[in-house]
């Protein structure tokens, strides 16, 4: 498997990124805050306001280093990419299938099976590990429901039903989310998903985690030559990376949600890392975001056994592995798209 290179997160406000030879230089006013050789980097994510020099952007595009600009609330701003990679035959196949409901369903179904399967085992794991803290019966019940939803999904014949089941299942799963928070309960409660804007600490973190994950999925798809904007389950909408959203479905629970839960349950992040704005919107402080990104990066280095490939890879490579498997299916090297089934 490909070595997982680093992502450089630049979170200091008012910084400017420039190129010096083969290095990225991080500047603030007249001082240089840091200098990192580009050859060690896979991507750069910045929430600094000032931006990056054209020379750096060009170098990143040339060297296939993802350069992503987020706002300081973690909202996606833009991404610099080089020429579209991969081959036109593969992309046309993607477009053709995306226009045929039956074909799209065959792939979309597996994304959602992956999502529900993984969420289900999150629930099962909690009943095993923390039976004293949670309502085991309720967890078992909803885990059973998710299992049934998966059965249903294997039999349905249209995308509309798939989206319907997916929505229902998500509601059921999120009913238990508050119980998965085992520490700092008074500062971190969960009463439902909200995102525009996030209105509590947990939603603020979930949104940021989903943004990062979507970014990484988009970059992974781009790397294998697929178009992140043309999806199978998510319909085309200008500016929306639908395939990246499709691909991240199976990772939402096990990757993003669990990550946020770990930050809270291990007290890596606390109430002081958040600010509530006048509108009720909650955002992470600069410090909070720094911790978030740092832990995210550490999480990406953790090893995991890939269930289909049977190889040990870093968590951070999972989106890439899945994108690759998807392209292999489109190329007819595989008899289907194998979702990442975690346990």
């Amino acid at each position: 498997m490909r070595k997982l290179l680093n992502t450089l997160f630049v979170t200091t406000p008012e910084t400017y990124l420039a190129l010096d030879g083969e290095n990225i230089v991080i500047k603030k006013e007249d001082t240089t805050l840091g200098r990192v050789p580009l050859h060690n980097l896979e991507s750069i994510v910045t929430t600094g306001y000032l931006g990056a020099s054209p020379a750096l952007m060009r170098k990143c595009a040339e060297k296939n280093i993802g350069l992503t600009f987020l706002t300081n609330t973690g909202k996606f701003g833009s991404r610099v990419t080089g020429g579209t990679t991969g081959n036109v035959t593969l992309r046309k196949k993607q477009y053709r299938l995306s226009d045929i409901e039956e074909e799209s369903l065959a792939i979309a179904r597996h994304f959602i099976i992956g999502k529900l399967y993984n969420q289900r085992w999150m629930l099962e794991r909690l009943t095993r590990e923390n039976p004293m803290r949670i309502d085991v019966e309720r967890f078992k019940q909803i885990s059973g429901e998710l299992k049934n939803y998966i059965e249903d999904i294997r039999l349905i014949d249209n995308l509309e039903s798939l989206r319907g089941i997916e929505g229902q299942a998500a509601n059921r799963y999120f009913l238990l989310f508050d119980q998965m928070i085992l520490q700092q309960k008074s500062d971190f409660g969960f009463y439902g998903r909200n995102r525009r804007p996030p209105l509590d600490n947990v939603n603020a973190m979930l949104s940021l985690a989903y943004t990062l994950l979507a970014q990484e999925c988009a970059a992974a798809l781009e790397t294998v030559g697929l178009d992140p904007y043309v999806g199978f389950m998510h319909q085309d909408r200008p500016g929306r990376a639908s395939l990246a959203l499709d691909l991240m479905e199976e990772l939402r629970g096990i990757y993003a949600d669990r990550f946020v839960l770990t930050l809270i349950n291990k007290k890596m992040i606390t109430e002081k890392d958040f600010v509530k704005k006048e509108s009720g919107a909650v955002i992470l402080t600069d410090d909070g975001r720094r911790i978030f990104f740092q832990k995210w990066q550490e999480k990406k280095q953790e090893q995991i056994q890939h269930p289909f490939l049977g190889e040990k890879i870093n968590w951070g490579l999972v989106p890439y592995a899945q994108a690759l498997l998807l392209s292999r299916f489109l190329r007819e090297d595989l008899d289907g798209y194998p979702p990442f089934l975690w346990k």
Partner: protein
Amino acid sequence: MYDEQDYLMISGIQHFLFCRRQWALIHIEQQWQENVLTLEGQYLHEKTDQPTIREKRKDRLIVRALPIHSPTLGITGICDVVEFVQDPNGVPLNGESGTFSPIPVEYKHGKPKQELSDILQLTAQAVCLEEMLVCEVPKGYLYYHETKRREEIDITPALREELKKNVAEMHQYWTRRYTPKVKTGNFCKKCSLQNICLPKLMNVQTVKGYLDRRLCE
């Protein structure tokens, strides 16, 4: 005669002989990933890739980065170096007095290989030069960076036949836009595309079996 659109890269011959799937990933699917070996190769070629330098030494004219093609084989590429040696039995060159015989020189990092890949690449260059200049190219050189020596290669009829056979097979895949399935071997370790190719993956299991197994747990 092939259409220009369908000319294949001469440099791809070495990929093709190394592994047909690697060639298809690079040339049909346009995938590429660097590793140490490819970077070394690139560095070496930066030195030879200077199309504007033209040297004259006594009886020879040395040209670098010369673009070539063969419509009959449907291949195109660039010669690292071609030495045009003055030769009464040679052919006239535009803008030069006298007649010359061309000798292609291909630069390689590493040392001479067991396989034919370097030799066939040179053969392809010879065939192109023959076709473009209407002359004969009976020999060429392979210069190896590690040994700092050039090896003289006779462009024999057997080599020409071997080249033809391989190029025809490449064209077949190209026409179908077909990427051959994996055949794994020790050579996979040296391949810069192993993470794209996933050699181990293909024969492992079916997705259907994988899902059935996991989902009934």
